[in-house]
């Protein structure tokens, strides 16, 4: 395979994996928090939060990318402070691709987790509480294990979306080989080039292979967890 892909393409594949991995990993805790908040808490602005989470889904990726650019760009309203105070720069770095992918994948992740949390029987959590476990402990020892299949589903959806994310990424952090040139961006680029379809097709197969591998892995994990819960 290393032969079959040019080093540049190979880089794009690795970069995509890296970006997707980090996008999922970093958004996981936020996703869980937001999903939990939407599923269980009542607070003013809940529906606004719900709306914001769904925004990346409903807006054309170009718009999301643009909004990211003017917010987290080097001169962006938030980006400049992140840079000044923490030295975090997203613009035109692979970290920016991670941010874009995470934002785009967030609604999918949150929905899956939220459904899972809503399906947990609060009676079990109550049982945990009567046995002396505080809220965080109940969450960790009862809720989390029970929602694991949903978390895996959410993560895998997010991973797939992150692997395929392109519009927001290229708008936000451009298409820089080795930094922000992910697999879909590469595919897109090839599609733009006269006669590039064959090359694009090759990368498409790579993308499909990765997706299938991730899916199989997630199915396996879900099944394992589900079987444990169903009581074997």
């Amino acid at each position: 395979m290393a032969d079959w892909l040019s080093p540049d393409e190979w880089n794009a594949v690795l970069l995509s994996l890296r970006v997707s991995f980090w996008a999922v990993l970093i958004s996981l805790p936020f996703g869980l928090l937001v999903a939990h908040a939407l599923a269980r808490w009542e607070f003013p602005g809940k529906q606004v939060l719900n709306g914001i989470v769904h925004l990346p889904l409903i807006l054309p990726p170009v718009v999301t990318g643009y909004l990211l650019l003017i917010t987290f760009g080097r001169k962006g309203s938030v980006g400049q402070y992140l840079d000044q105070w923490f030295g975090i720069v997203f613009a035109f770095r692979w970290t920016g691709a991670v941010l874009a992918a995470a934002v785009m994948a967030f609604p999918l992740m949150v929905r899956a987790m939220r459904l899972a949390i809503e399906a947990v029987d609060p009676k079990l959590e109550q049982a945990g509480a009567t046995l002396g476990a505080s809220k965080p402990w109940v969450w960790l020892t009862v809720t989390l294990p029970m929602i694991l299949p949903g978390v895996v589903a959410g993560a895998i959806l997010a991973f797939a979306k992150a692997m395929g994310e392109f519009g927001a990424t290229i708008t936000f952090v451009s298409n820089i080989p080795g930094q922000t040139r992910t697999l879909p961006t590469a595919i897109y680029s090839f599609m733009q080039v006269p006669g590039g379809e064959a090359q694009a097709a090759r990368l498409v197969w790579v993308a499909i292979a990765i997706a299938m591998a991730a899916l199989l892995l997630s199915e396996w994990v879900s099944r394992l967890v589900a079987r444990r819960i169903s009581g074997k």
Partner: protein
Amino acid sequence: MTLSVSLRHSFPGITLDVAFDAPQGVTALFGRSGSGKTTVVNAVAGLLRPDHGRITLGDRVLLDTAQRVVLPPHKRRIGYVFQDARLFPHLTVRQNLLYGRWFAPKGKAGAEFDQVVDLLGIAPLLARRPGHLSGGEKSRVALGRALLSAPDLLLMDEPLAALDEARKAEILPWLERLRDTVRVPILYVSHSHAEVARLAITVVMLEAGRVTRTGPVAEMLADPVSARREAGAVMTVQVGPTESDGLTRLDSAGGPLWLALSGMAEGARIRLRIPARDVMLARQRPEGISALNILECRVGEISVLSGDVMVRLAVGDEALLAQITPRSARGLGLEPGMPVFAVVRTIAVATGAPG
């Protein structure tokens, strides 16, 4: 430590208005299905926040809606055996059992793991997950889980309902010992008079969300009106010597009773529950009969209860109840003050502190 409960809560169809004290030992919550027993227990556990109420355990305030004090469930240090088991499906039976221990205050010893597992007969299940356990197995694990969490207060909502008689007979004496050694209040919901008579010290009767009567088990179960079907009296006796054939003499004001008891210290005072239906009356002391336990007593109040006659008997200063047919009552010519002999088949022995 005394648990003191007073609460008011409205559901669409029923309003709960309950107040009672549960001292050391077992307090039974008694009442028909839907009378509010589980709701009360949930409020004590902190799973239901009543509209108004105050619940204290010793000097700890668990709830005081007037002062806006609401201790969350995990700080109440309770062991709750739910009516519907509620085992954690993702943990093995062993992990379920040990869950509470994890969070128990260090240094506070609960029941012994091996002992509880043995008693409940769940050793072969330890490695399994609860999904495919049988109904009774689930309820035994749930019982074990609560017992092992070293609680300050035990809440048991029909813990033995799904168990067979043999298993019950093994667990009950153990619960009695628990009640007497671990000195925590136990709130016990049950439909079985026998269980309540054995275990309970106080009985709280619920009806449609209200406490209709509350008091020591002896009085409550001897009250013919409130406990029609399974009326009976609780009598305190003193343990005497055990004879060679294994029977122990129990001394009462009405004469000796003989019972197969074991491990009971001579001189201890224990409680016997004598169901009214198991007491026959005779004008003369019956001879040549298989009944060993015959008490001298005096007829007290005679009341007629839907087809039966309930006779209250005075045995010294204790009360005994006999439920007989009107025909027998006529035949015997019973009258208050008349001396009679009560032929007794004792059903339940309620050990422990006298009520």
